[in-house]
């Protein structure tokens, strides 16, 4: 004979298991069957035990594999990668200075030859 406290725990377990199967996207009969089965398996027990039993049942029925696509494959929200590279464009923000430096370099090369830089 179960005590009042055990009865309360069992009710909590029942409600928890029922709530879980209601939240699952399953056909109504299927969800209720699973809930009943899990409660039968554990008897008067805590929510943790009932939920563990339910999870084991879900696994047995192959309902714990996450969200799958129409072909039963792992759902992906993006297409397969097809990589390319994007290199930042050079933005010469001081073209007048660059031009001046290039002018000096040309002038030096003209005067002393290219080798002098080394």
């Amino acid at each position, binding site marked *: 004979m179960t005590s009042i406290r055990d009865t309360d725990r069992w009710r909590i377990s029942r*409600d928890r298991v029922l709530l879980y199967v209601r939240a699952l996207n399953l056909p109504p009969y299927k969800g209720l069957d699973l809930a009943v089965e899990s409660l039968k398996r554990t008897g008067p027990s805590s929510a*943790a035990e009932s*939920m563990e039993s339910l999870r084991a049942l879900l696994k047995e029925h192959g309902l714990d594999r996450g969200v799958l696509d129409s072909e039963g494959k792992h759902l992906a929200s*993006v297409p397969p990668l097809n*990589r390319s590279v*994007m290199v930042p464009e050079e933005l010469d923000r001081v073209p007048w200075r660059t031009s001046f430096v290039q002018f000096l370099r040309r002038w030096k090369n003209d005067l002393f030859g290219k080798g002098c830089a080394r």
Partner: protein
Amino acid sequence: MTAFELDWSRSAGRRRLLLIFLVLAPTFIACGTMASILPSRGGSPLEIVLLAVFAVLFAWISVGFWTALMGFFLLLQRRNRYSVSNVCEGLGFSIENPHARTAVLIPIYNEDVKRVFAGLKTVYDSLAATGSLDRFDFFVLSDTTDPDVWVQEEEGWHRFCTEQDAFGRVFYRKRRSNAKRKSGNVADFCRRWGKNYRYMIVFDADSIMAGRTMVRMVQMMEARPDIGILQTPPAGVNRETLLARAQQFANRVYGPMFAAGLHFWQLGDAQYWGHNAIIRVEPFIRHCELPRLPGKGPLGGDILSHDFVESALMRRAGYGVWLAYDLDGSYEETPPTLLDELKRDRRWCQGNLQHLRLIFSRGFFPAHRALFLNGILSYGSALLWLAFLLISSAQAVAEVYLEPVYFLDTKTLFPQWPVWRPHWALALLGSTAVLLFLPKFFSYALALLRDPAARLYGGRLRLACGILLEVALSTLLAPVRMLHHSVFILSTILGKNVGWPTQSRDDRGTPWADAVDVHWWGTILGILWGALVYLTNPSFFWWISPIILSLVLSIPLSVLTSRASLGKAFRRAGFFTTPEETEPPLELRELAKTLQEEAPYSPLPLSPRQGFLRAVTDPCVHALHTSLLLRYKKGAPAREEARQALVEKALRSGPDSLSSKEKMTLLNDPFHLAELHRRVWELEDDKQAARWGLSQPSVD
């Protein structure tokens, strides 16, 4: 360069020369008039500064005036040989080439998820109706940082794909890092999947486009391989606040004329506005990746106003950037309140000022340098206006206290009498008013030429009244905007950086407390400014009284214009009516219908907005979220321990004890999230379980 490119570039050159002449000649005359009005004929240092500021401002408003006038005459013509839409004449709404695939990109950042997917559904259905849906794929590109919104987005995507059978056509990607913000988000797409597509149409979170418009855009790009970016002019829709309705009205009445005017002198050197545009992907990948600007501070780092730079880079690479000014079916939503508008402007202001560092970059076309300058002046002009008004006030006060100089250093026959010529001042004021307001009259004339009864605007009288009301409202708000834009510029220059705030896209009004918080100092400034001028030089006070009045009333103005009830009252009276309100297009009707749909059934007492809780508690949402997480590798023991500690903390103190960052950490970790899910459902204590949405159903 093809013959057509040579043709349009020569035409553009001639048109720009004409524009420069039309802007500079009146500016020169106006400056002469202004100088003659001033007491020292522009001879004192203060007057020289005043004249310089005046010249820039007069030229600035002249550009707008002549652009509008050019648009007016362009729209009067039956045919424009440079219009991009000419290539679609005689074409149906199909895209022949199967390789001309287009990705529709919807970059989002902590947006209203219901609105995002309602918009997506609208566009998706509209494209399906054209029969060309198979040429398009959709990418919702999330940069969201709010854990609740992230989970909502995943749910929204999954529900949409399930309902529409759109798996493999509609994709969702969540980026972990928000590097380079929106431009980085789009670039990330380009790097991962850009090679799969010839074109991409970039949306904003609130963009809506008709399927026919999108097909047309692809057809135009197919027919014109020289185009790199094709921009459409989006019409403002769907807002109900007074401010937003006035802006929608202005956008709809004046917008087409200004867009045509911009097209007239820009031609293939147009600007990309960041959304509602189609882009050729391959050159975009090759040439349009943005560098980080070196240095710290607000003018360094990521380029915020990326669209300007991307269009300049595309043009530099040899591709045209065109504005399809005559293409309709493109919509966006405007900021609902003045505060939201100012928040957005703060970001744009910093972005545009960054262009100061790019304006002389090598290889950009002169037209794009001018557009950089135009962007800078969009906000810089506010500071100049403020400087102009303050200097004028200082001059007026100085007139009272300083004795005029009758005899200059150089010997003259007669003393220099200060002369006040009010009729010249009035003429100058009048010419400025003409530049500002005449384009609105042209818009009215254009609307009547198209439809003499102006039925879509509620009739001729209501259209005219709407224009007058819009002029009054924008005149009242202009000084408030001027003051804030000036502060934005100064704070940017002083090194205050702007974050990336989420944009508000609903019609909630501005509370009085928020308005006081933002506008109190402007109000006090207005009172002090007005009092000082009135007490020292009352005759000048009346010249600046509109500015003073606006500043003093800024708090009630901000609150009242944010009221949807007031906007609706104007709507009932038939003012600010737009064609999209009189005869809503199918897309907007569908959007409204979708937004009315109720949230799907859930036995758990959790709101759809409680995304994190749902990912932990709701087994379906949890399964979806963990399925969508990319490959996850367990980290170093210290990191795993820290995450385990988060799980314990969540169980012990409930979900509210977790910060947003901690929630994101758990959401990014499928193992610890699964453990949390399992242990939450095993909680024995009723109160603890209720914190996770596991309240006991009444079964007995």
